[in-house]
């Protein structure tokens, strides 16, 4: 019954007028930005990050989380109507969503997407509320060495699993950790890499970094690209949105399987909504009696990935909130938002800040309901959003980023720092280096260093003592396995590519 009491407390917090307003604002802005092709949750949260400095931590997190799962909803709209994913997690939705739109069934696809997103999100929230307290209680016995091992696993997983080149992902994580070491060392008080600059004593700000890398960096690389704007506007009409009986019958099982797959991959470090959506799609195609329908507008092909990515959005909060270990760059930003407000996430968070934790969980549900209510009548608005030329959008985004950066400390130098990180982000894109692991390394860097130094003191400088701990040892072994696996599969992929290239030249 403790759970019911907690849920009631959460509802109470989430339903307070101001939190409700920020939840609404978050999901609205998230959908709005998610519809814009190319701007995913990371860019959206980065750009709106400074606003949340003015809110109390619960409201701040409710709003940021709303932006996060709102973009996933909005991202699928662009996938279906334009065949351009609004966010990477909805890329799979293009495969069957766009063919449906070409067959004149865009309205049905949008409707089913919205319902599937809600179902998947709800499933993820149930998993989140059931498992978080258990994991947090278990984690109370973790020592610094265990945290060090878990964070290392998170960093290695995030930099290797989703990236074609493990070397590039790992290099970016390490670079992020190095950037994070700029400033006063928390243990010795020595100023590191400040080169005598007073303003660097506090290190780089997470908001400047995120806004630069993902906000300005995104604009720099997308301005001047060709864009398609051919949309069937009639898809937004109500009568075109009613699914057939057959559609509904076909969607049950894919929805359930998608929710389960999404919940699983969302909670794992390094995977998250994009991989969850991809896996769910692959599983549906495998179990289907008619796999040939996939890619030609099969309803299962949008229901499964859409439930999966929304379920994953919710379960991604499990490691972030219970262990204080984010599994992705987006979750690292959530963690950053908490730390800006002086809250150290970890297993004690649920007990010490029950209103924050359960309020956040219940706000997810309210947010998902708002999205359900908001999306169906407003699809017409989102469709029109897609028609706004990018040449009007990007100056607006740029101006908002500038004001946001300036408003944090009323310091024009922060704006220039955002520009610096923006140029870095653009450079990374050109160089084919992933920017997300950089941010994750930046957030986790100081935490992992502290835990590592503490655990080495406890182990009296003997690393084998750390490996002998049951949890730390197992996790470190897993990390090593993951490293070996990713190196082996990267080498295999290169061989295959090389052979294909030679075959192409020979033939």
């Amino acid at each position, binding site marked *: 019954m403790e759970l019911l009491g907690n849920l009631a407390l959460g509802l109470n917090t989430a339903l307070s007028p101001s939190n409700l307003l920020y939840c609404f604002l978050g999901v609205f802005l998230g959908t709005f930005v998610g519809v814009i092709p190319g701007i995913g949750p990371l860019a959206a949260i980065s750009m709106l990050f400074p606003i949340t400095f003015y809110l109390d931590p619960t409201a701040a997190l409710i709003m940021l989380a709303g932006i996060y799962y709102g973009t996933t909803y909005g991202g699928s709209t662009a996938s279906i109507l334009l065949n351009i994913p609004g966010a990477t997690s909805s890329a799979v939705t293009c495969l069957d969503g766009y063919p449906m739109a070409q067959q004149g069934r865009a309205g049905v696809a949008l409707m089913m997407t919205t319902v599937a997103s809600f179902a998947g999100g709800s499933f993820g929230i149930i998993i989140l509320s059931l498992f978080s307290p258990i994991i947090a209680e278990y984690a109370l016995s973790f020592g610094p060495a265990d945290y060090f091992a878990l964070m290392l696993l998170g960093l290695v997983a995030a930099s290797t699993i989703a990236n074609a080149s493990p*070397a590039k992902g790992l*290099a970016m994580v390490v670079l992020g950790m190095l950037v994070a070491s700029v400033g006063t060392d928390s243990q010795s008080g020595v100023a590191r890499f400040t080169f005598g600059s007073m303003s660097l004593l506090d290190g780089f700000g997470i908001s400047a970094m995120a806004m630069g890398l993902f906000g300005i960096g995104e604009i720099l690389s997308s301005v001047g690209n060709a864009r398609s704007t051919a949309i069937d506007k009639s898809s937004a009409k109500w009568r075109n949105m009613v699914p057939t009986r057959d559609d509904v019958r076909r969607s049950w099982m894919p929805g359930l399987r998608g929710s389960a797959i999404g919940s699983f991959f969302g909670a794992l470090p390094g995977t998250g909504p994009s991989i969850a959506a991809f896996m769910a799609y692959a599983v549906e195609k495998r179990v289907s009696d008619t796999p040939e329908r996939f890619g030609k507008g099969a309803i299962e092909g949008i229901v499964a990935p859409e439930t999966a990515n929304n379920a994953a959005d919710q379960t991604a909060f499990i490691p972030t909130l219970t262990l204080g270990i984010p599994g992705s760059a987006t979750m690292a930003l959530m963690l950053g938002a908490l730390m800006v407000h002086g809250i150290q996430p970890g297993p004690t968070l649920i007990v010490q800040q029950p209103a924050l934790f359960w309020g956040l969980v219940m706000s997810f549900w309210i947010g998902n309901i708002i999205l359900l209510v908001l999306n169906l009548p407003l699809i017409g608005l989102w469709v029109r959003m897609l028609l706004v030329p990018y040449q009007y959008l990007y100056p607006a985004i740029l101006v908002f980023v500038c004001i946001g950066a300036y408003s944090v400390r009323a310091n024009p130098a922060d704006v220039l720092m955002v520009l610096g990180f923006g140029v870095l982000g653009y450079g990374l894109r050109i160089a084919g280096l992933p920017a997300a692991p950089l941010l994750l390394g930046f957030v986790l860097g100081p935490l992992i260093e502290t835990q590592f*130094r503490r655990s080495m003191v406890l182990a009296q400088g003997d690393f084998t003592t750390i490996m002998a701990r049951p949890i730390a040892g197992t996790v470190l072994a897993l990390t090593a396995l993951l490293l070996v696996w990713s190196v082996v599969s990267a080498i295999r992929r290169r061989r295959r590519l090389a052979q294909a290239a030679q075959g192409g030249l020979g033939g």
Partner: protein
Amino acid sequence: MLDRDYRDIVAGVALALAGGAAALYAVSNYALGTFTRMGPGMVPAWLGGALAVFGVIIALQGMAQRGEPVTIRTRVLLMLGASIVCFALMIDRFGMVPAVFIAALLASCAEAPIRPLRSLILAGVLSAVTWAIFIAGLRLTIPSFDWPY
């Protein structure tokens, strides 16, 4: 097609140099300490070393594979850069509305074709909208207009 992936080679070498420099700087300026009691230099030194190693690996991989030429859009970079710099220089001296106006005007010129009238209207609308949101709505303590001279 290029016979080597110069993009990866340049990126790898740059990362390796950055990592090496960070490691050297940490070793020569900060105390390393022992493994039991690590000084402030220990972790950055190892991180710099790791970055150098990964950079070398990326560069070596680039040597072994074919690549595509890279295009850098200097015009976009310059116009958007100028826009942000102008905002930073103007916000304290002239206030938010002029800073937004100029920044939006410059930014809208990054993409061809440039349409002066539309850019002016866009800059005007954005100035009004940002004023309404940030100063009238959120009540940020940024002056709307200022004239230092």
